[in-house]
């Protein structure tokens, strides 16, 4: 009984408990069974010797309900001029020519990241999914190739000469081909850095970017999701109220926040004066609490639930505009990143099922010789290429500074629907083997459901 009490409530849960709708009710037999179930549960905890762990204050992302303080930030030394606009990279020069060829720089990046995805990311994926955390070795490797600086202008220590949406998309795709969860984990800090590059004031850029382009890159998180059904990210419930003394007070809950437990810097979406706005919040701020929020997939990203209880930030913590335009652009660029991740994961599925169906035999020949199997693979290929082209179109437009709201919306719709179908078919093609963890397709099935749900988290 005490077990259930030790789990702190995380506020009113939308929907019922244990996945039950409010229309369900217990009858006498039901009550008896429930009592028996509670007894059984506590025995299990003791039998497996987990009682001690349950009493530990150590934060574990795998077990939701244990809320702790966020990681204290390293204390970013204030620098730069308040009120001075930040450095911006120019948009890519728009070309009128239809072209599917990446630039030389982009191709080089893709080649490097593809190798990393194959050699370092994929081998670590299954265990990271289990542990709900990215191993240091993987994160270090991604830092070594300079990922956080991808969207940061050279003038600020990064590698970007022009808007990096296209390069970022290609990199996210290549990394996700290794694993989506690890890709998200690796790309989260760079996403915050890119946000600072795109919208930061001089003060914000000078204060925070040196850390992201230095040797010891902090974990960071872009927190926009909220635990509401039919959540509209453009109307967050998290509130930002002016306190009248040059500060703003943040109140609310953010869900599925990647790297929340060790993030030293958060970008949080909240409604200020009726408009959605982005706020920079340093880790360890009073009132900021984090607990594990593991999900169906993308588990290696260490998903967490972030609670803001009267978190005070200076007005200068606003990132970008207060009229909702920056927030909307951030949402669109995040959605673009998720499309890229979907394409990479979809490619992983296609690459995996193709040799499998050619080797696996049934009825005396490879199952690939049967049209129902072959057509399923063909349709994966067709829809994957569709997803890819829509994503690239949106990315190229974003990089050129063109309006891309329509294109990213269409890309997202397709990537969500067809991406999930690819995940579904990936498992189906492996039959029973697709259902067990010996093969990675079940993980990609779980990961691909995130598309269309996740907001923020990553950004190109």
């Amino acid at each position, binding site marked *: 009984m005490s077990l259930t009490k030790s789990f702190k409530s995380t506020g009113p849960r939308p929907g019922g408990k244990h996945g039950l709708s409010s229309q369900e009710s217990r009858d006498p037999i039901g009550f008896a069974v429930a009592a028996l179930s509670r007894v059984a549960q506590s025995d299990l905890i003791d039998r497996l010797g987990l009682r001690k762990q349950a009493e530990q204050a150590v934060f574990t992302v795998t077990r939701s309900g244990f809320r702790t303080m966020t990681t204290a930030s390293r204390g970013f030394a204030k620098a730069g001029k308040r009120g001075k606009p930040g450095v911006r990279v120019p948009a890519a020069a728009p070309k*009128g020519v239809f*072209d599917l060829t990446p630039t030389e720089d982009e191709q080089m990046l893709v080649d490097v990241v593809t190798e990393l995805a194959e050699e370092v990311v994929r081998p670590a994926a299954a265990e990271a999914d289990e542990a709900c955390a990215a191993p240091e070795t993987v994160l270090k490797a991604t830092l070594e190739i300079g990922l956080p600086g991808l969207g940061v202008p050279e003038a600020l220590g990064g590698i970007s000469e022009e808007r990096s949406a296209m390069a970022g998309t290609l990199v996210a795709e290549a990394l996700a081909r290794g694993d989506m969860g690890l890709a998200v984990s690796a790309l989260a800090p760079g996403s915050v850095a890119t946000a600072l590059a795109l919208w930061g004031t001089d003060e914000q850029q000078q204060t925070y970017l040196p850390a992201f382009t230095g040797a010891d890159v902090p974990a960071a998180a872009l927190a926009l999701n909220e635990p509401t059904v*039919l959540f509209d990210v453009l109307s967050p419930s998290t509130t930002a109220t002016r306190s009248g003394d040059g500060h703003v007070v943040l109140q609310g809950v953010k869900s599925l926040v990647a790297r929340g437990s060790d993030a030293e810097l958060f970008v949080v979406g909240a409604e200020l004066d009726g408009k959605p706005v982005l706020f920079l919040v340093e880790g360890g701020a009073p009132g900021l609490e984090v607990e594990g929020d593991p999900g169906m997939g993308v588990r290696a990203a260490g998903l967490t639930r972030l609670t803001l209880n009267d978190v005070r930030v200076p007005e200068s913590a606003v990132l970008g505009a207060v009229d909702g335009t920056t927030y909307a652009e951030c949402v669109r660029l995040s959605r673009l990143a998720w499309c890229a991740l979907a394409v990479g994961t979809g490619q992983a599925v296609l690459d995996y099922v193709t040799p499998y169906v050619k080797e696996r035999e049934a009825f005396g020949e490879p199952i*690939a010789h049967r049209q129902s199997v072959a057509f399923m693979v063909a349709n994966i290929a*067709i829809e994957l290429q569709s997803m890819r082209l829509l994503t690239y179109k949106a*990315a190229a437009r974003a990089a050129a500074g063109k309006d891309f709201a329509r294109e990213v919306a269409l890309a997202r719709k*397709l990537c969500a629907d067809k991406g999930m179908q690819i995940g579904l078919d990936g498992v189906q093609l492996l039959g029973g083997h697709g259902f067990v963890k010996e093969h990675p397709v079940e993980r990609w099935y779980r990961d691909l459901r995130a598309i269309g749900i996740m907001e923020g988290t990553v950004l190109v």
Partner: protein
Amino acid sequence: MAINLDDPKKFRPLAGQAHQVAMNMLRPISRKYDRAEHEYPKELDMLAAMIDGLSESGASEGAGAAGVRRDDKGDDAGVRNGTNLASVMSIQEMCWGDVGLLLSMPRQGLGNSAIASVANDEQLARFEGVWAGMAITEPGTGSDSANIKTTATLDGDEYVLNGEKIYVTSGDRCDAVVVWATLDRSLGRAAIKSFVVPKGTPGMRVDRLEHKLGIKASDTATIIFEDCRVPKENLLGSPEVDVKQGFAGAMATFDNTRPLVAAMAVGCAKAALDLTRELLEGAGVVIDYDRPAISQSAAAAKFLQMEADWEAAHLLMLQAAWMADNRKPNSLEASMAKAKAGRVGSDITLSCVELAGSVGYSETELLEKWARDSKILDIFEGTQQIQQLIVARRVLGLSSTELK
């Protein structure tokens, strides 16, 4: 050299022109010829003359059925946006106007594409200006075109053709028919060649015209060949029976025309989407690109799904054409484009009828007509299932004996 998938700037004026033609010439007569099936669309002669003029002046950028010829000229640096892209873009706009009327455009037949793809330079010059239909399908042979039974027997300086061809688009109106026939059935597909048979050649007769579900403005004919003699110079390309190269020559046409058929489906679907968007707005439903589909009305969410599928088909079509322009083998991409466009074409046009209710179902609007026109685009020139077979074989690296 940088990724950019916006419609090529170079051809926007051309596409704009085609759009105006579609709007002002094709749409006004769309319903008329849908009702009066097989009546000759005389308005198209004027249009054809205009297009010929544009072709001459170069203003049409080589777009059209003949635009699919692969350029063997020397390599020029950089990325090309050439005649294949121009063709798909202008055909898309024309079919946004009316698919049946586009198919009835003089000198824009599939036979013209075949000539452009397979003819030698002498034939290309000789058949310039000839409107050519394509005759492949027979009563017993559809998808398995290697199984055709129409024969071509060499007799002196002439080939003698015998057989029955069905579903020949523009079979009645065209000036000549490109006929697939076999030189020797025992040698299999390698012996299949195409022959240009001018109308009026003794032994060739148009037997009947089909009554169809859609594209009624287009005449679809059954043509019978009884000891029909054609000069041997009318065999397109090489008369060699090359068992190794086999069927490839004839099939090469399809790599080039598949993106064009995809363009037809993309155009037809766009017509439905454009009108439906406006009808929905009139009913108070505005599509919001930033809010999640699930937070909008069912109609808006459905529209978003259709538009996403449409854009996918559009981009796959452009990719296939771009690869042809840049001399990259595009068999896989051409089939992907046709497969996607074919299936979403019908999904979109039929869903638009549903969304518009009785306004969509009634003949007062053109939505129901587009839903009837679009179906054939998933069938002719390689059915959906054949496209999936081609894609599957490519992706899986399987031959036609392994994956049937």
